[in-house]
């Protein structure tokens, strides 16, 4: 109980900070995040530039804020695709069962044995680089995660009395599946959502770091980190702040996921 609460409060607080930065990035940044300035090149953190400036004199604070926004939007899109399609597949697989179920679960077992960063790379290899492709690739990668969780819920739920009663009353199969059963899966869905967000943020940052995700000039945390690498001694703050915010986002969702797993 105590542990669950500590994790949840810490997780929400950390995510609050990241979300605040994302809001700043969407609404108003103190400086133009893409504007280069020869005079502020490699400027150390100071009052005017809280996080310092990068090798082109761009304000790191503004870029981190925009990067948080980008990361946030991409993760939401990715998890939405994965959750929607995964839930749909898992629901049919669990409720109908039979050969369809066996084949689907066999496939998702195999997929689950590969690390998500590798699957994302394969998908990007097929579809191509760039932000829209990144969203589709990562979204597909997360489908099995949701499908497995939802399927196992449906296998249990469909044997319960309320479902049998609904069937006797002649309720349609789709109505039973999505109006009656789905709301009862909310707890495991919620905990899967936090895990998915945790991996989605990490995967987005990783792909952008490798140069296969968000393309310049759009500011992205992973991209900033890889650009900062060549100037580690002259301007370590670029790497520190962009890396720290990736860490925050991943940690926030990780703590939330841990609080859910403590509860069960």
């Amino acid at each position: 109980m105590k542990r669950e609460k500590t994790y949840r409060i810490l997780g929400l607080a950390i995510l609050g900070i990241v979300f605040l930065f994302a809001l700043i990035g969407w609404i108003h940044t103190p400086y133009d995040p893409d504007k280069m300035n020869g005079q502020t090149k490699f400027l150390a953190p100071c009052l005017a530039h809280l996080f310092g400036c990068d090798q082109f004199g761009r304000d790191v604070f503004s870029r981190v804020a925009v990067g948080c926004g980008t990361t946030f939007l991409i993760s939401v899109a990715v998890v939405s695709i994965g959750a929607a399609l995964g839930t749909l597949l898992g629901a049919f697989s669990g409720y109908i069962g039979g050969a369809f179920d066996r084949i689907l679960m066999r496939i998702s077992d195999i997929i689950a044995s590969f690390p998500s960063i590798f699957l994302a790379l394969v998908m990007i290899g097929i579809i191509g680089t760039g932000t829209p492709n990144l969203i589709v690739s990562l979204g597909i990668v997360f489908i099995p995660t949701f499908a497995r969780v939802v399927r196992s819920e449906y296998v249990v739920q469909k044997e319960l009395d309320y479902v049998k009663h609904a069937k006797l009353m002649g309720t349609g199969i789709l109505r039973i599946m999505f109006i009656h059963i789905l709301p009862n899966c909310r707890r495991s869905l919620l905990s899967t959502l936090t895990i998915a967000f945790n991996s989605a943020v990490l995967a987005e940052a990783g792909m952008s770091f490798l140069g296969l995700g968000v393309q310049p000039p759009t500011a992205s945390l992973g991209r900033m980190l890889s650009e900062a690498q060549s100037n580690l001694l002259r301007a370590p703050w670029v790497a520190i702040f962009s890396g720290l915010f990736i860490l925050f986002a991943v940690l926030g969702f990780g703590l939330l996921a841990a609080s859910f797993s403590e509860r069960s």
Partner: protein
Amino acid sequence: MKYVAKKILVLFGTLVVLSFLVFVAFQAVKGDAALSQLGDNATKEQVEALREELGLNDFILVRYGRWLSGAVRGDFGNSSNYSMTVKELMRDKITVTVQLAMISLGLILLIGLPIGIASSGIRSTAGDIAAGVFNQIVMAIPPFFLGIFITWLCGLVLAWFTPGGYVSLSENFKEGIHFLFFPALAIAIPKAFMLIKFIRDSMAGQKSMGYVRTARSKGNSHGRVLYKHMLKNALIPVITFFAMIVAEVFAGSIVIEQVFGVPGIGRLLVVSIANRDFNVILAIVLYIAVIVLTANAVVDVLYHILDPRVSLE
């Protein structure tokens, strides 16, 4: 024995299905190889002739069969980005990645096992929360961020190694190990902490078992029960966990090779994806799939040998 044979059969089946799916997907997005080879000025007849010559007009299953029969002999065609065969391109790089992975796995065991076992005896609520939060932080560190941090601290500030100064192991063994140690450390640290958490959880799960109570009631000391009786049973599930770690280490090296400038298979994969060099991507995907699926199959068999209660299905 029958069980092992079945496992091997399933393994090969999975590999064939997997490679077929990726092959078809690549064929679909690749565009016309004949057209790109001849350029826009080629006449329709020329393109058609080359298509026939390259075998592009054949049914997809025929083309896959041709690729597969080459692949089992180690022939994966030519790289479109480098003027080399995929086999030549990959040979040295596989060695480098395997060496990096081996050192990483060694480090994971060296760090994770002793700390995990030693700390599993100590349990308190406050300590557990602190350890749990710390563990979450370590697991949340993106591998590339950790890599950059190690480059900065050990490479630039402390000057323990030259960033980007890769030395091949076969050229100079001592220097090579010296350099590979740092990227391996970047891969190993988060996984070692996962291992520690797993051992602690596994030991905690043993605590409520009947045999533990029996051993205690016979007058065995706390430490003896912990390390003599419980440890053996608690370490069995760790073996399954290790299959996952093997997969994660190879995935981790894709990113870490990029950070440290290690000329391995991961770096080749990233370059090939950026350049849409499909023959190389396909070969690397298959290579990693072989490693991951083999690790899983071996662990399943080992698990069965160590704990015969586990059913075969």
